[in-house]
């Protein structure tokens, strides 16, 4: 099959970030929806986290080129969102949160139409529609009217229309919203498959931390229009983990010894009936310090176990810090 894209219009190479945001700001009247967002996101399964009103939807709409920012700029899959909005949308898919499907038409017809709306010729669009409906598990139902579909099947149609034109990146806005636990689990599996096997970068906008933990390997956290964190999810323990230390010996002296080395230590709750210390681990060297101090003080190190911070800890911690900082400034 021939390719009509010329070299200049080809959007994306693996080396390029999927999203590159430079000082994006958008306000609606006095409400600041996005405040100086600076962000570079690799081709990954990205969780876009934030409470309602955090700016997630505004960020997505800006990245799709549907909203013009007040200042700053962004490029998505290599195209500038301000000047090349239609090009961005040609190579990006979007699955909105709201129920948004025509009911009195078949899934194949609608998904094929959406492929054409992304620039595919009619014949290729029909073929792609059949293929992606097969990929999302609606092969048998594709000639049925959408009005007879369950919530889960409709979500699948929405996912199919988002990937039918073989985008480089898709934005999924609350993809598991309104689904029962079983349907939600299946949708998450599908999303993971879209990223891992179909090779399409994914941005999942959600306020459900568990969804992000399940399918994403990169997280972006927004709060009140500000960027709170943007980093790989697998490396979240870099932000901070904890070591639970149980020693036989003078625990207070051990705590003072660690604190004198600049390590943050606090007594643990008496979960097991032992007195334990919770040591913050920001660096691998902390483990060496614990070992050396135990030798130096002649204390027996009975146990040392690590406890990574969950995404919820990270979210609450970073958002809390950000709000505190803003509060101080005000």
């Amino acid at each position, binding site marked *: *099959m*021939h*390719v*009509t*894209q010329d070299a200049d219009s080809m959007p994306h190479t693996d080396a390029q970030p999927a999203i590159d945001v430079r000082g994006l700001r958008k306000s609606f009247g006095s409400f600041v929806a996005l405040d100086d967002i600076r962000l570079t996101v690799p081709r990954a399964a990205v969780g876009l986290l934030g409470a309602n009103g955090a700016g997630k939807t505004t960020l997505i709409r800006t990245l*799709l080129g*549907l*909203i013009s920012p007040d200042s700053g700029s962004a490029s998505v899959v290599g195209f500038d969102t301000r000047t090349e*909005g*239609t*090009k961005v*949308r*040609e190579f*990006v*898919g*979007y699955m*909105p949160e*709201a*129920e*948004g*499907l*025509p*009911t*009195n*038409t078949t899934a194949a*017809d609608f998904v094929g*139409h*959406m492929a*054409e*709306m*992304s*620039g*595919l*010729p009619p014949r*290729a*669009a029909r073929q*792609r529609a059949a*293929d992606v409906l*097969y*990929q*999302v*598990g609606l*092969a048998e139902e594709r000639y049925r*009217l959408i009005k007879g579909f*369950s919530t*889960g*099947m409709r979500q*699948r149609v929405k996912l199919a*229309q988002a990937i039918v*034109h*073989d985008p480089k990146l898709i934005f999924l806005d609350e993809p598991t919203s309104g689904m029962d636990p*079983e*349907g939600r*689990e*299946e949708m998450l*599996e599908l999303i993971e*498959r879209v990223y891992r*096997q*179909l*090779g399409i970068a994914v941005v999942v906008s959600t306020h459900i931390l568990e969804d992000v933990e399940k399918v994403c390997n990169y997280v972006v956290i927004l709060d009140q229009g500000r960027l709170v964190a943007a980093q790989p999810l697998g490396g979240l323990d870099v932000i901070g983990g904890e070591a639970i230390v149980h020693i036989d010996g003078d625990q207070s002296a051990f705590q003072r010894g660690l604190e004198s080395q600049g390590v943050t230590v606090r007594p643990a709750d008496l979960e097991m009936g032992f007195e334990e210390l919770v040591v913050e681990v920001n660096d691998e060297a902390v483990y060496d310090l614990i070992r050396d101090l135990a030798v130096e003080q002649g204390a027996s190190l009975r146990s040392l176990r690590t406890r990574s911070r969950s995404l919820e800890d990270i979210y609450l911690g970073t958002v809390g810090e950000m709000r505190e900082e803003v509060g101080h400034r005000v």
Partner: protein
Amino acid sequence: MSDTASPIPATPNEGASRYGEVFDRGYAHYDGPREGRRRAILSLFGYSIKRALGIRKSWTAKILPALLYFSAFVPLIVMIGIASLLPDANVASYPDYFVGIFTIVGIFAATVIPEILVPDRREKTLPLYFARAITRFDYVLAKLAAATVLTMTISVLPAIILWLGRQITAESPASAMRENLGDLWRVILLGTLIALTLGTIALVISSMTDRKGVAIAVIVIGFIIISSLVEPAITELNQDWRRYLILIAFTLVFDAIGTSLFDSQPDAIVQLADLPIWMYYAWVCFVIVAGSLFVRWRYSPRNAS
């Protein structure tokens, strides 16, 4: 297309639930042509027409458009057939024909055209459209074009058949066609103006509601009320400005334009109003342009979700 073969065997997962099965027959990336905005606009145009006519929808959606096409074409074809068989029978004159067809075109615009715009709002598919390779302007352009072309199929096409019928039933069809070629262009012009005007008015009203029934009711009732009020207003009122009221009764507006195009006697109310013919043309152009701009405004980011 390039096939990026997947390592997963091509079998469904055992025990997967009714939604959850993912069959893997390999995912083919698309590396064929991408035709961008042009294809997107064409697709939206074609899809809107198909949806409005009930194509690829349930059979009930096809009934009304089919009935209207039947009432526009069949009596005309029967009339031409009779005229070709009976030398004494006359085929309708163009102005008479357009007066007759105007009601059918009006009902068509009121009932079929809202289907072009309203479902996208009611079913909340606008975010999906605006996330594709089009701008909001492209969306409105495609919808306006679809409404106009669709209305032309019932205002211009039968009129062209009428023109053909009149020539075929003439004593010398070939020479009649040559001599009356000017009528063909006048027929197309009048039919196109009717299509543009009624199509735009129907879209304006459709752009203001999420309910097709409301759009239909407003358009139909609006036409009926205006048509029934204008005539007594013009004849009974004493003020000089009353004659301009004729401009809101589009039946009379197109009667004036049609009779001027074909040099025939206009309706008595048109004669009473006695407006210059350019004013009717200017008014029709204003309605088309203002209506299009209004729909464009309705779909600007502040007004459409």
